[in-house]
């Protein structure tokens, strides 16, 4: 139990020595992606082998420092595409797609003899990139919020402290007044990373000014946007950073309790946060009279139960209070009447994770990253039809082109880039013409999209944009809570029209009707979910109107919309072998053997079985 600031400083020095005595380290990625690829089995196997071979190996940081090999489960390294990933220190090598069978060799060659195993290093275009920072995927990134992800043991408060963790909290608690902390955050112009980009400092200041107690610090970890997993990786990979950010917000605003709301689909984030809170309590960094300062603070975790709307802050609050997750009209603002009707600071995970670095390095330093109005970095989840999927962090204002081509490596299988969906179901899409657009709050807003939580789903020329719009509308329609009519009914009508279009029942005038409904819903819905629900439709119509028109006329250029597909047999190629007729599940194909067969379009369900079975490639899409 740490009783004073001196105790914490002493502890930090001791463990820092112990950590630096670990001259060799193996960091096994224990993010969700790599675990699914078998990284935990790899961890166990490495431990086993090192025991067998009597290699002095430490799975936990010891107080007494001695020369040893550190074997750790780290947070997500980000390069999920290449998992399971292993980082080797001191060389800084990143091994990818590691298999269980590689383990003996890793211990023998790399750990004991410091040799590189070339086949496990990243290869691209005949070049080998052993070091993590040299890999093109990492080269253009600036990892501030994710600095620890992949570099320290995600489950160890001691390792967090040894690498400078809780120094910002210490500074805020002992060296700065609450006002000074709030002013630093204001001056840094840290904008909410949850989507809208509202300056965090303004929220903090509003809560600090109020003389109503208790006050609450609320952390929104209900990262519901499909295709986004930045917050998940932060909570799993560096849970203490989130806690530290919340604790700083607490001591700056006079709040004594914090709540983290994590979505149910993230069981590992809940587990690691719970363990982190437990560790902080045991050390006395959470609880009463923290480090003898007189400041009390405690953090609770609430698990979501599968409602996307709970990402909206008033709905989230209702959910914590044990109600259905219905949003409510604002004002009153959350900062004035939030959780349990008290003043509440609502920020998301990534926003809090930015706080410790800002307090440590100052507002000016923070503003030197990114651009004036949009300082700092942003984590994005890069997914979809892209070569390098994964978690990235870039300075605000990085150009889309750099993200897609330099970091992402372009589209899969050399396909042509078509669009990127940004900001999930509330966002819009960016096309080829936006490749030189800087990714920041203001530029994206001007282009009809938004940063959102940070999901970037890349689509190539084989993706049907109308189908994607239908997909998002289906999502928001499902997740509409039903409280207000514009969203409940409006999204349903929009979805019906989109379903008609992709299923070949589209009509002249549908596009105009969609746009009219979109305007109505955006201007009258109660909460952010409804207001932004039409965005994907509006933005896809804006950039791909001709594809909507083609669908209405009955064709899908990508062949995705199966109801618009028309399969025909080329009589010149057909040898009349009857294979297709035999495989057809609905008996839609008929003909005489040795003469060209025909498909009855009325019966055909476009399953494509005939295409696969035809030895002469005679069945084609018309």
């Amino acid at each position, binding site marked *: 139990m740490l009783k004073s600031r001196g105790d914490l400083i002493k502890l930090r020095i001791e463990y820092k020595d112990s950590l630096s005595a670990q001259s060799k380290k193996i960091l096994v990625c224990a993010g*969700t*992606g790599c*675990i*699914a*690829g078998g990284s935990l089995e790899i961890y166990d196997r490495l431990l086993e082998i090192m025991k067998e071979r009597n290699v002095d190996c430490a799975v936990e940081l010891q107080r007494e420092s001695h020369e040893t090999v550190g074997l750790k489960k780290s947070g997500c390294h980000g390069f*999920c*595409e290449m*998992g399971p990933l292993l980082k080797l220190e001191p060389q800084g090598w990143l091994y990818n797609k590691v298999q269980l069978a590689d383990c003996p060799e890793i211990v023998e060659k790399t750990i004991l003899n410091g040799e590189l195993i070339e086949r496990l290093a990243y290869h691209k275009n005949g070049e080998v990139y052993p070091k993590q920072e040299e890999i093109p995927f990492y080269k253009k990134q600036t990892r501030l919020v994710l600095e620890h992800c992949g570099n320290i043991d995600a489950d160890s408060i001691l390792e967090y402290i040894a690498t400078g963790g809780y120094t910002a909290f210490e500074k805020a608690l002992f060296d700065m007044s609450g006002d000074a902390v709030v002013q630093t955050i204001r001056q840094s112009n840290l904008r909410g990373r949850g989507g809208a980009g509202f300056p965090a400092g303004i929220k903090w200041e509003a809560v600090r000014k109020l003389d109503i107690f208790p006050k609450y610090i609320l952390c929104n970890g209900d*990262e*519901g*946007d*499909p*295709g*986004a*997993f930045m917050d*998940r990786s932060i909570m799993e990979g560096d849970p203490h950073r989130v806690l530290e950010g919340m604790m700083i917000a607490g001591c700056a605003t006079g709040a004594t309790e914090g709540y983290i709301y994590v979505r*149910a*689909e*993230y*069981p590992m984030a809940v587990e690691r946060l719970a363990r982190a809170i437990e560790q902080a309590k045991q050390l006395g960094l959470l609880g009463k009279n923290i480090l003898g300062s007189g400041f009390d603070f405690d953090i609770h975790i*609430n*698990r*979501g*139960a*599968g*409602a*996307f709307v709970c990402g909206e802050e008033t709905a989230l609050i209702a*959910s*914590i*209070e*044990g*109600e*259905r*997750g219905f949003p409510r009209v604002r004002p009153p603002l959350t900062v004035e009447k939030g959780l349990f009707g008290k003043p509440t600071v609502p920020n998301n995970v990534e926003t809090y994770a930015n706080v410790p670095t800002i307090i440590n390095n100052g507002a000016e330093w923070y503003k030197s990253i990114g651009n004036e109005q949009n300082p700092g970095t942003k984590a994005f*989840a890069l*997914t*979809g*039809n892209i070569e390098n*999927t*994964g*978690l990235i962090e870039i300075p605000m204002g990085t150009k889309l082109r750099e993200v897609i081509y330099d970091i992402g490596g372009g589209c899969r299988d050399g396909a042509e880039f078509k669009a990127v*969906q940004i900001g*999930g179901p509330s966002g819009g899409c960016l096309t080829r013409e936006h490749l030189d657009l800087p990714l920041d709050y203001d530029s994206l807003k001007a282009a009809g999209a938004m940063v959102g939580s940070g*999901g970037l*789903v890349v*689509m190539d020329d084989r*993706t049907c944009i109308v189908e*994607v719009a239908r*997909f*998002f509308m289906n*999502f928001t329609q*499902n*997740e509409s*809570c039903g409280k207000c009519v514009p969203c409940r009914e409006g999204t349903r009508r929009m979805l019906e029209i989109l379903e008609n279009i992709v299923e070949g029942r589209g009509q002249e005038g549908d596009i105009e009707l969609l746009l009219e409904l979109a305007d109505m819903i955006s201007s009258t819905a109660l909460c952010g979910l409804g207001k932004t629900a039409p965005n994907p439709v509006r933005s896809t119509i804006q950039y791909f109107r001709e594809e909507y028109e083609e669908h209405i006329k009955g064709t899908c250029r990508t062949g995705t919309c199966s109801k618009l597909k028309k399969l025909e047999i080329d009589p010149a190629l057909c040898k009349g072998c009857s294979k297709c007729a035999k495989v057809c599940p609905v008996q839609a194909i008929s003909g005489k053997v040795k003469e060209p067969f025909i498909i009855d379009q009325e019966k055909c369900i476009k399953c494509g079985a005939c295409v696969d079975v035809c030895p002469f490639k005679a069945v084609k899409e018309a």
Partner: protein
Amino acid sequence: MENNATFNYSQLDELTGRAGNDPKAIIAILQAVQEHYHYLPKEIFPHLERKLGISEAKIFSVATFYENFSLEAKGKYVIRICDGTACHVRKSTPILETLRRELQLSEEKKTTDDLLFTVETVSCLGACGLAPVITVNEKVYPAMTPEKAVELLNQLKEEEKNA
């Protein structure tokens, strides 16, 4: 309400007690109940009403609002197909269709009659880097295809036979 007798209320009280018997913790309490029974048996709602001092209607409204709560028993293996954006553009729908066809399930009928399998979709599991993914209970299976899904299904059936 016919099978009231089958419920062990002291066990239930222990679950609610751990969440502090606080009406505000109703979601956490229902989560604990569901983790235990794998669904929310409606029969226990009157008991919860007395215990927590909130109306049965309120409990019901919360239980039906949130997607994760199920008032129907689920299968031993809950297969969830991610239909998040990333999985969707990497073709998750054929996987769902294949699994439904294999198990004779549909959008309405989610659980097999022998209570072995439940097939449902989930908005996003946040494992987008490995798309398309499915989970069986809590385990994540990356980069799935309809063929791999059938293979997995057969494997589970086999394990069940040998168990």
